[in-house]
Structures are given as C-alpha cells and as structure tokens.
C-alpha cells in the first residue's frame, strides 16, 4: 500500500512541474516587457529597472523559473503592483472565506447527493428515482451562479431570511458565519450533488443486479442488510473517487458563486486582479488552484487504492 501511495506521489510530480512551468510562462507570454507591465502606467524607469532586477529578468528563462519556484516555497510571491501589498498577505485574507465556502458546499453535495443516489439506485423506476432524475436534470443544467442569483432574490431580498452580501469568519461568529454561508454553499454544492447522485445511482443499480446480491437475498437476508452490507460497500468505491475528483470543480464553482454573494475571497481577488492587470496576483492564485486540483486527483487515486485492493496490486 505504501509503495502504491509513493508511486502515485511520484507520478503527480511531473504534472505539477509542467503546470508550474505553464503558470510561470504565463507572465512571459504577456505581450510586452513584463517589468514595464508590472510597473504599471505610472511606473518610472527606476521602477522598471528595480522590478527587472527583482524578477531576475536579466537571467535565462530556466534560471528565472528555478528562482521563482524557490521564492514560492519560501512564501515570497512578490508584491502586487496594483495594491502595493505583498501577494502572500492578500492571499492570506482571501483564502479562508473561499475554503469555508468550498467545505460547506462539499458537505451539501455529499449530504444531498449520496443518499438521493442510493435511494434512486436501489429502487429504479420508483418515485425516488424519478425525483432523482428531475433533480439531476435541473441541477446539472442550471449553473451555480444563476441558481445563486435566484436564491438571493427569493431568500434574501423577498423573504429576508439571509444576509444579502459579505462573509463572516466561522471563528469569529459561527451563527452569523453560517447564515452568510448557507445560500452560497447550496448554490455551489447542488451541481456537484447532482453529479454524485447520478453516479451513485448508476453504480448501485449496477451492483444490485449482481449475482452475489441475489445470493444474499436467497440466503434470506433482510433487504436493508443486503443493501448496506453487500451493495453499498462495493458501489462506494467509484463514488469515493468521484467525490475526490469533484473537489476541483467545487473550488472553481466557489470562485464564481462568491461573486454573486459579494463574498471577499479568491474569486473576488482573481477577478479584480485580472481587471487591474495585476499579473503576480493572478499567477499566484492560479498556482494555488492548480495545486489543489492536482492534489484532489491524487487523493482520488490514493482513495481508490485504499478501497479496492485490485488497483494496488497492479
């Protein structure tokens, strides 16, 4: 098992390196001189020279890449030219609200999606199954930000149940924080819930048709025991993988939905930065998003190995 985990980690490294090279090259691909771009329109010649020195633009590209990577590992992400603040400090304030939202949305997705999928899967063509089909059709079709706007109108503006904008840290005031989180979490999580539900339904329905399920029934086991002990266990393996794979999609969803509810987070940060052409901020945010994405894929692989001994054996 350890060898399997280790091998997977090793496989993730080249992907991470490639992705970081891509993000690194991004700034060099911007038409024009990066130093002049970073200095902005008001930048003086001295500013440009200073930035060129800081970024090591006089070195060769591989040298620049290595020193850039070294800086990242030391937590030095440069200084935002639009705001004059260290990028790492901007990220420190932007990451917590996004993580809170992503975690809450993930809970919504799992708590809604998996049970719905199980119910639909053990009784195909039942009322539950039709409910599930309707739910997935609507939830996959409607993007999170549209759902967010509709919920904002109904629950915040008309009914006044939830605050209209902003975020409160869960550490400062848990109740108020949850009130701010509820709608964005549902808006972000419902689409993922639908994906999980559909997937769970398919795998359960498939497993329920297997011979060993028939055998279990023939032995006279109670239906609940057949489902829980025999069907669920085997069908959850691919579902766990899909759950891990959805983390990336969830994060991207959270970035957009944040904008609907005017939550200060990574989404706001990156959008403002693109508009202000604050390249270093965008670059750093993208590195974080890509790393999380690759990490989620890695976690999916490892979970798969844990749950299914056959995968490890390969």
């Amino acid at each position, binding site marked *: 098992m350890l060898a399997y985990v280790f091998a997977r980690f090793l496989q993730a490294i080249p992907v991470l390196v490639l992705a970081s090279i*891509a993000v690194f090259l991004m700034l060099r691909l911007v038409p024009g001189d990066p130093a002049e771009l970073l200095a902005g329109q008001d930048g003086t010649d001295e500013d440009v020279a200073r930035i060129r020195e800081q970024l090591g633009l006089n070195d060769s590209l591989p040298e620049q890449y290595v020193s850039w990577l070294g800086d990242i590992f030391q937590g030095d992400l440069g200084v935002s030219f639009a705001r004059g603040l260290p990028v790492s400090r901007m990220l420190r304030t932007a990451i917590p609200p996004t993580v809170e939202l992503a975690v809450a949305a993930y809970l919504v997705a799992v708590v809604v999606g998996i049970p719905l999928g199980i119910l639909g899967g053990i009784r195909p063509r039942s009322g539950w199954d039709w409910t599930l089909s309707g739910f997935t059709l609507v939830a996959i079709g409607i993007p999170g930000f*549209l759902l967010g*706007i509709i919920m904002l109108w109904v629950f915040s503006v008309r009914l006044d149940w939830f605050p209209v904008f902003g975020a409160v840290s869960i550490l400062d005031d848990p109740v108020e924080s949850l009130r701010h989180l509820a709608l964005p979490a549902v808006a972000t999580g419902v689409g993922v819930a639908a994906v999980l539900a559909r997937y769970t339904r398919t795998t359960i329905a498939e497993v329920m048709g297997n011979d060993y399920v028939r055998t279990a029934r023939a032995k006279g086991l109670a239906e609940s025991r057949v489902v829980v002990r025999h069907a669920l266990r085997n069908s959850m393996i691919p579902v766990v993988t899909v759950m891990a794979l959805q983390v990336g999609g969830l994060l991207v969803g959270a*970035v957009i939905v944040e904008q609907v509810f005017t939550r200060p987070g990574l989404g706001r940060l990156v959008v403002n930065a693109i508009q202000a052409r604050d390249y270093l901020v965008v670059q750093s945010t993208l590195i974080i998003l890509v790393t999380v994405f690759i990490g989620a894929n890695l976690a999916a692989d490892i979970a798969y190995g844990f749950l299914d001994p056959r995968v490890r054996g390969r």
Partner: protein
Amino acid sequence: MSAVTLDTEVQLSWWGRKTRESLLFSTINGIIRNPQGMVAILGLVLLVVGAVGAPVIAQHDPIAQDSAGRFLSPSTENWFGTDELRRDLFSRTLFGLRASLAVSLISVAVGTSIGVTIGFLAGFIGGILEAAAMRLVDALLAFPGLIAALAILNILGPGVRSIGIAIAFFTIPAFARLARAQMLAEKNKDYVLASQALGARPVRIIFRHIAINAFPPLLTQMALLMAVAVLITAALSFLGLGDNPPAPSLGGLLNVSRQYLREAWWYAVCPGAVFALLLFCLNLLSDAINEASSPYQRRR
C-alpha cells in the same frame, strides 16, 4: 457491443455515398424520434431564430435609452421590462444571446477543427509524433476549463476575443483525444486497408472515409462542448471579464441585475430563464445524440 455496429457501418459505407448519408440520417432520425431530442431541437430552433433575427424581432434598440421609464415591469411594450438606464430588456436579452451564441459557436468550431486534425493525424501517423501530441493533450486536459480561461484572460486581457480564444483552447485537447481514439479504432479496418490498396492518398482516407465513420461521437462531444462553452462565456462575462459595455451579454445582464434585485426581479429572472433554457436544450441534445448514435442504449 459497439464493435459490432461499427462493422455494419463499415460494410455499408463500402457501397458508396448513399449509405454514408444514411449513417448521418439514422443519427438525426434517432434524435428526432426521441422526445428529449425533439424538445431540445425545438427549443434551440426558437433560441437561434431569436438570436439570428434579433435585429428584426426586437422592437427596441438594445443600447438606446428610449423606454418610458426605469425598471418598468414586463408589459406588452417591454416584454422583459426595462433596466436602470431605460433600455428594453427583451432586446438586450436577445442581443446578449446572439453575442453568447456567436462566441461559443465560432470558438468551438475553431477548436474542434484544430483538435480533430491533431487527433486524426496523431492516430494515423503514430510513433513519436503521436506520443508527443498526446502528452501535450494530457497536460492541457489537466487544467480545468475555467482556470485555463482565467490564465488566458490574464495573458490577453479581459474581453470577448480572449474568451473566444480560451474556449477554442480547451476545446482542442478534448477533441484531439477523441479523434485519435476514433482513428485508432478505424485505421486497421478492412475498408481503410482496401482504399489504401486502391492507392488512395492518406488525406483522402482520413477525411473522406474515416472521418465519416468517426462522426457521431464527435457530434456528441461537440454538443456537449457547446453547452460548456455557453456556460463559460456566460460565467466569465458574469464575472465582468468579457464585456464591452454598453453591448449586452447574457452573463453581463445577470451580473448587473444582482444590484437591482430589490427594484426589478425581472432583470435577473427573464435573461436567466433564457440562459437556463439554452443550457437545458444543449444538454438534452447531447444526451439525445448520444443515445441515437449508440444502438446499445437505444435498444434498452
């Protein structure tokens, strides 16, 4: 399962043009006979007519601030009401739909052509070229669509053109991979070997014989990617990264509407409904194409 059907297609396409049309015909026939497919097509026809005919259908200029007042609720004069600058929201929605569809369609078409060409060539030629192309495709696929789009917007600056390039960019790897798989499945079949024996040039074999047999899966993928493209276009303009105001876009309308939910619910709901209908139809359509082109699913 699918191998069997492909074989019959191969035998049919031996006999020339008529049966080739019938492969396309049977797919289309399958879509129309499927109630889902019919709903999708009707909905899309309605939306496309609205988008293409926007200059004729809309009674108001989408930019002119010429309505009777701000935030008028929907009426016979202004079907979707008016916005904060006395502009007609029905016209703005139609023109926004037109812009979104144009960007998505053009960029998916460009991305598809490039991706399919890369995939076909890689699959047909094989060797180092194939390996290199496919590793590149894997690397591209590792980036989720929106993150790649943000990176491209960062390089090129916000705007519709950048969004189009971003969409084409993430369309390429998906199609390259699929087209290569199709090529590998087809290239050793008898009909290909036969046309090779008859002395047909590779270009002719690829685009005249293999491409036609590889068509239905590519079509499914295209419908699916159209839905993704429409979604990403709208999401990016919703984030405020794609507009050049005062020109309307679906995402842009939704973004501005957020500030006026208290005064004008129709501002969000009407364009939102059109957008949702579009995505819904595109998703239904790709399901229907998928079913129509896979006899195994159809028979169930």
